[in-house]
């Protein structure tokens, strides 16, 4: 199953979560409480009001859990690069059962996507490595301009480790941008930084467009802006962007013109 089919299935699943049934049940219990209150107005007997109150509290707790389900599914879709569009938009019409697509293989998807981004081919040789080690290996490959190694390391790491790369890359990008600019970066710096880094990024990740590099820079420099919906692309850009930023000259606060290259 491709990512689009997986996304469709998960969005349909999220859209089918039984929140309307929760609402219906709660409305019935509320009506029952009203009737029972009226019926027990002249009595101190326990007629079930407290139990119904407890039932409604449990229902509310279950509703919160369903909210967590929807949120987790959104997170997963984002992690596999399938986006977080509204579930209802792609859900089948009520009463129409969704066709059950075969399960997707996230590693296969990752391999294909990394190959595509790096404009290379080959199967993954899965290797479980800590994210920091992967990050350092990718930095080394990027520093050496070794596109083959860069693609292979990223491909072999798989999505479980690969999606953690931005968390390591963005703080460094921000720090290096601050060193380069002589001050903390902001959104207005993104176009300039993009123009200075995009060629080096695309040398290793040819399918990363300038827009994608700008998104990554914005995410790193403005603390919180999203980086699009393609987890593999975001992961692929991170380390090479750090390497590219590392090569930028430092600038003092009063001097925003390049001085000397820090590294060859």
């Amino acid at each position, binding site marked *: 199953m491709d990512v689009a089919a997986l996304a469709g*299935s998960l969005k349909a699943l999220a859209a089918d979560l039984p929140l309307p049934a929760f609402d219906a049940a709660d409305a019935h219990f509320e009506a029952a409480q009203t009737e029972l209150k009226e019926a027990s107005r002249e009595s101190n007997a326990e007629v*079930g009001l407290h139990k119904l109150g407890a039932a409604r509290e*449990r229902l509310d707790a279950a509703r919160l859990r369903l909210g967590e389900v929807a949120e987790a599914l959104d997170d997963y879709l984002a992690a596999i690069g399938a986006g977080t569009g509204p579930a209802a938009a792609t859900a089948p019409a009520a009463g129409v059962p969704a066709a059950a697509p075969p*399960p997707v293989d996230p590693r296969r998807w990752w391999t294909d996507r990394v190959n595509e981004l790096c404009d290379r081919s080959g199967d993954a040789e899965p290797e479980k490595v800590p994210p920091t080690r992967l990050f350092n290996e990718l930095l080394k490959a990027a520093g050496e301009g070794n596109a083959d190694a860069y693609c292979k390391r990223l491909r072999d790491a798989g999505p479980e480790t690969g999606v953690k790369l931005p968390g390591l890359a963005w703080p460094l990008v921000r720090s290096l941008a601050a060193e380069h600019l002589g001050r903390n970066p902001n959104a207005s710096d993104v176009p300039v930084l993009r123009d200075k880094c995009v060629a080096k990024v695309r040398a290793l990740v040819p399918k990363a467009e300038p827009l994608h590099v700008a998104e990554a820079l914005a995410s790193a420099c403005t603390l919180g802006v999203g980086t699009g919906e393609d987890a593999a692309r975001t992961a692929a850009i991170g380390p090479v962007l750090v390497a590219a930023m590392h090569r930028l000259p430092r600038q003092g606060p009063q001097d925003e013109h390049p001085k000397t290259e820090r590294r060859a």
Partner: protein
Amino acid sequence: MSTVSVAELKSAIAAALQQVRDGQAAITAASQNIEAAQGGLTAVTAGSGHDSVATAQAALAQAAAELEQSLAATFAAAEQAEAYAATL
């Protein structure tokens, strides 16, 4: 002095019990839906091992448990209401 007849009280309780039964039916349907979602999620994401998938599965299981307890509370409520009606 009471202004409500015993028949009216029993009628109100019967109406309440019907509401409870309708609510129970809705919860039962929701429970079945959640069970189907658990199966569907497992099938679609088989072998992913992703934390978010595990989170979703855990939240579905917790929702199912909360529904069970809600349903149990409604049965207890219905028993109390029926017992009260029997004393009238």
